[in-house]
């Protein structure tokens, strides 16, 4: 449990210390990639709670979502349509749904524990 958090902190420090900046033209891609990453992350947590976590699905989901989002943003730029908004919308909805499911599961687990204690 602690290893991922440790790695998250390492990643954050690395990003801050390396002083890398993305040019303005590509900032849309990165922001959507970050959103896709969050989506995959919460999806993973949900799968873990539902006890059907599979690391292949998790990894491919992570890579595939990010590439698809970037591709969509790229096509949007080429066509002059803000297609990345579609990705933002889709990921946003999924994020909220996953979060809601995670919340319910945690509450259910706690209630079950209480019930068992009685």
């Amino acid at each position, binding site marked *: 449990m602690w*290893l*991922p*958090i*440790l*790695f*998250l*902190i*390492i*990643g*954050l*420090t*690395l*990003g*801050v210390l390396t*002083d*890398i*900046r*993305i040019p*303005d033209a590509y*900032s849309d891609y*990165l*922001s959507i*990639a*970050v959103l896709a*990453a*969050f989506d*995959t*992350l919460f999806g*993973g947590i949900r799968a*873990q709670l539902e006890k059907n*976590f599979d*690391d292949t699905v*998790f*990894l491919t989901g*992570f890579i595939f979502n990010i590439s698809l989002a970037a591709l969509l943003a790229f096509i949007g730029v080429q066509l002059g349509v803000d297609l990345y908004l579609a990705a933002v919308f889709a990921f946003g909805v999924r994020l909220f749904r996953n979060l809601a499911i995670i919340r319910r599961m945690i509450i259910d687990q706690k209630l079950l524990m209480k019930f068992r204690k009685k």
Partner: protein
Amino acid sequence: MKKRTKWLVSIVFLFIGFMVAVQFQTTSYESQMRETRDVWEVREELQRQQDAQQELLESISDADQTIEDYEQQSSGEQLDTLIESIEVLEERVGLNKVEGAGIEMTIAPIFEESVTGQAYPELSPHLLHRLLNELNTYGADEISIGEERITNLSPIRDVNGSTYVNNRPIGSLPITLKVLAEDPAKLRNYMKASPTQDIFNIDNMEMKIELKDSLLLPEFDGALHLEILEETGG
């Protein structure tokens, strides 16, 4: 959780952290203004600001002097100071005649011997604007076009095809411009070398510049309409 899964998740977390940090830096970076001036540009800016400060301090001390004069003097003298201030202001605005050294520019038509004939050249407002801007850039103090004194509020307009200055037509060529300057010789040299000459030539006009020791500029005789005054800020 299996050990392999744990490492996998950790590496994904590493990526996410990295991306978030880069994204954060990119967005926070945009709000900062980049300083791209080199040392000399900064020095020049400093010099400019110091000059501006010096000028401001001088005008403050002038104003202070005037206030002091008002306070210390009797009412008769106060009136004198007031009249003096008004005169100074009128002088600056252009409500008085001015005499001094300067240059006299005559804008005359050039005639080519063309078979088709040519239209009589006219001085357009654009050209006049350009000329006045150039004169002001090169250090002209007071300018008059024909018998019209140019003030800060003098309009130069195109009215039904003819050029109007101070709401009166300037008439046809040749037109005489009288320009007072602190250093008339320098102004003449600048004007002789300026590209405006060529533009006048394109429109079949030529510019003759003469140095004069004494030029009398007429006063501005219209009413000063200053309807909109806005704070420029800064």
